[in-house]
């Protein structure tokens, strides 16, 4: 039953990505050319509401559905991994025109070449795992 819940959340996410065109290579290109407000509006709205949601959960100590407390883990306060990793991710985001979520949405929409992108992203993750100890974090 729980699995079905997660599946439903994923469906909501997938539909949102497709219908908002955030899964379109063209929208990502347009965003990086600062030629439209669309993508900035999407991310801006999500973050603005997200800040309110998380602040509300913390302030009123809202519990999860199963009654357990909701814990927020702080990210390690370093610099290189976020700057370098982020930069590399950004290069790929603009080139492939898709971040990980939309990659799967696009496969569902019938764009099968995205399977190549996903396989390659898995391979990239694997290479990171191999090189991790040699990279500055």
């Amino acid at each position, binding site marked *: 039953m729980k699995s079905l819940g997660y599946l439903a959340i994923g469906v909501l*996410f997938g539909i949102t990505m497709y*219908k*908002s065109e955030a899964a379109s290579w063209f929208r990502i*290109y347009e965003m990086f050319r600062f030629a439209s407000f669309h993508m900035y509006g999407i991310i801006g709205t999500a973050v603005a509401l997200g800040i309110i949601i998380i602040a509300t959960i913390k302030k009123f100590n809202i519990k*999860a559905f199963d009654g357990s407390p909701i814990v927020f883990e702080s990210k390690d306060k370093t610099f290189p991994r976020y700057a370098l990793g982020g930069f590399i*991710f950004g290069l790929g985001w603009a080139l492939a025109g898709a971040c990980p979520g939309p990659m799967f949405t696009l496969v569902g929409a019938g764009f099968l070449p995205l399977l190549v992108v996903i396989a390659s*992203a898995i391979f990239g993750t*694997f290479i990171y795992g191999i090189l991790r100890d040699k990279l500055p974090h």
Partner: protein
Amino acid sequence: MDWIMEPWPWYLAGAGIALVMLLLLLSGRTFGVSSNLRTFCTLCGADHQSEFFKFDWHRERWNLWVVVGTLLGGFLASHYLSNEEAVHINPNTAQELHKMGIESAGSAYLPNEFFTIEQLTNPKALALLIIGGFLVGFGARYAGGCTSGHAISGLSNLQWPSLIAVFGFFAGGLTMVYLIFPLIFPS
């Protein structure tokens, strides 16, 4: 209900993403898609190659269900909730892309020039898919998250590291579009 068949406005999409994050938080989880790529590595046996992939993937099974849903959502949205595929980007941007040889700009959802089965035999198109995917996968894990983990979950929780990562995403994206695209798509 006509609106649902049209491309969704940004505020609806932003609210949808925030709702996804809220539902995952209330389920005791966090919103982050790229973590699944690590799980896939472990499922493929990468735990024999690196400590990084040694973890109990069963505890991450919930996230795989989210991914299956994300895929299913793409199927439902494109088959039953859309009248047309074309993404109407800024006409000037579309024209710019036409000059770069991407003729499908303004009339398709993805560029036909590299996202069709036929183009998989085109070395340039295939290279774009492979290199693009590799950079996304490598970069996301190196940075500890992708758009969902850093730009949405991290920024919503006011995490400075996530802000650095998001600046990195943009620095990388702008470098690709302004410095590298002119080399690979000369106009």
